[in-house]
């Protein structure tokens, strides 16, 4: 039997989060392959089949995959509220999201209704189980961490996103009569802004001061921002169906995200320690891209039709492959080695030498992958103006996804090797 752990009694087994983190880059890879294969036509509109497929590979397969895995880790540790039946929940959510992402993407690509029903059903099952587990966990929270309310608004937004997505999926196959145009605008808004950006905020309130050694976020931000933005998302949605002018909540939403980005950049500028690492740089880049997305949001509302369409495309790039991917990619470089270190420390300390964080996740390859990511993103934005760049960008995304997977695997391999050493010594 293993000795009692570092009392992370609350923490789930390492296999729970790791399966999410190590599968996610494969979906990034799949999206990159689509960009290489379909090239310039993907940048004509966000509604192109290959674009919709790649977008859902990114959102279901990469970002939601990592976020669900991370939440199952963070809820017990940050909020002191264990997730019920962690192994069963992780197994179900992981498998449903992975197969659901593949099914939905394949359906967009090849227009097969059966794949949409299957993929949409699986993704809904995965999110349903996750939402039930996360809601149960949040209802038992003992902590007053400022992250907790933002996490609550984020998972409520996930419920809205999933419901809209499922409805759109059914309507797309002609099985349902809904206001399609409005729903197809609100679905990405709730997914990117509500589920994703609100969770990034909640996580940032905790991890930016802790890992990046900055002062805490101003209390006014941690208390009011996430809830206020959630309310604005509801108002912006209502504007689609009432006489409420959409520009009012729309501009307020852009400004709210801008406030968060500027607050984070300012905190990072006031760090106590001047040494930087890949995670910090990814987060700084991510906040810059969020700020760019806010400006593009405003531009899309103000510019004449043709220019506005281009601004919307750039807004999508700045938001998803930009801000969201940068922040999650950077976070993976902290959370994966931290979990590996923590589990080694709690179980095998004194039995063999425990590698430190920098050995589990060296900074140089992480920075190298970041450079590749930035180049891929710049070319993708460039392809909006000069489409032949799209395929080259796809090749760089492909290399970046492979490199990310390689870097994360390094931590896992070292973890396994250390466990093997420790258990071999024990049986001597």
């Amino acid at each position, binding site marked *: 039997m293993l000795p*009692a752990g*570092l*009392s*992370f*009694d609350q923490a789930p087994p390492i296999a729970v989060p790791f399966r999410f983190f190590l599968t996610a880059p494969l979906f990034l890879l799949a999206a990159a392959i689509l960009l290489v294969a379909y090239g310039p036509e993907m940048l004509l509109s966000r509604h192109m089949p290959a674009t919709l497929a790649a977008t859902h590979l990114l959102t279901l397969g990469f970002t939601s995959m990592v976020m669900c895995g991370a939440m199952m880790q963070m809820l017990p540790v940050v909020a002191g509220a264990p997730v019920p039946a962690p192994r069963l929940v992780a197994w179900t959510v992981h498998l449903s999201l992975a197969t659901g992402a593949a099914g939905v993407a394949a359906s967009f690509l090849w227009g097969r209704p059966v794949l949409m029903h299957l993929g949409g059903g699986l993704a809904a099952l995965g999110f349903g189980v996750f939402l039930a587990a996360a809601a149960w966990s949040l209802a038992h929270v003992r902590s007053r961490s400022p992250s907790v309310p933002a996490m609550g608004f984020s998972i409520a937004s996930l419920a809205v996103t999933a419901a809209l997505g499922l409805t759109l999926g059914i309507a797309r196959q002609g099985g349902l009569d809904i206001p399609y145009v409005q729903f197809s605008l609100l679905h990405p808004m709730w997914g990117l802004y509500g589920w994703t950006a609100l969770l990034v905020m909640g996580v940032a309130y905790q991890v930016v*001061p*802790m*890992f*990046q*050694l900055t002062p805490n976020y101003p209390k006014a931000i941690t208390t009011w921002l996430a809830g206020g933005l959630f309310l604005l998302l509801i108002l912006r949605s209502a504007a689609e169906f009432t006489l409420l002018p959409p520009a009012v909540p729309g501009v307020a939403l852009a400004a709210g995200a801008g406030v968060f980005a500027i607050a984070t950049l300012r905190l990072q500028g006031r760090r*106590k*320690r001047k040494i930087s690492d890949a995670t910090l740089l990814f987060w700084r880049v991510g906040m810059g891209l969020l700020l760019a997305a806010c400006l593009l949001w405003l531009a899309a509302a103000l510019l004449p039709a043709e220019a506005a369409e281009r601004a919307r495309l750039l807004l999508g790039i700045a938001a998803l492959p930009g801000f969201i991917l940068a922040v999650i990619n950077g976070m993976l470089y902290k959370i994966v080695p*931290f979990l590996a*270190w*923590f589990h080694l*420390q709690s179980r095998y*300390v004194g039995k063999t030498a425990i590698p*430190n*964080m920098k050995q589990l996740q060296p900074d140089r390859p992480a920075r190298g992958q970041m450079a590749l990511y930035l180049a891929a993103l710049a070319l993708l934005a460039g392809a909006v103006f000069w489409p032949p760049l799209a395929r080259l960008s796809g090749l760089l995304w492909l290399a970046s996804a492979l490199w990310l997977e390689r870097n994360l695997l390094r931590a896992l391999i070292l973890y396994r090797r250390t466990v093997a050493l420790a258990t071999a010594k024990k049986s001597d």
Partner: protein
Amino acid sequence: MGERLLDVRELEPPEPLERVLELLDTLAAGDSLRMLHRRQPNLLYPILEREGFAHRTTATAEGDFEILIWRKQV
């Protein structure tokens, strides 16, 4: 009877935990360790408990935490 000081306020997690665990190994009975930390080291407390250490945490005027650690008498 000595007191040692460990200031981890400018270290990134999990270095504070690594440092204090190293020092605890060498802490003799009657000695104490005064640790300065930016936050409550929630992961440390259960280890202290398990390894037979007592601790007392006070918040400082600057908003940091001071954790006094000593070996429990057996």
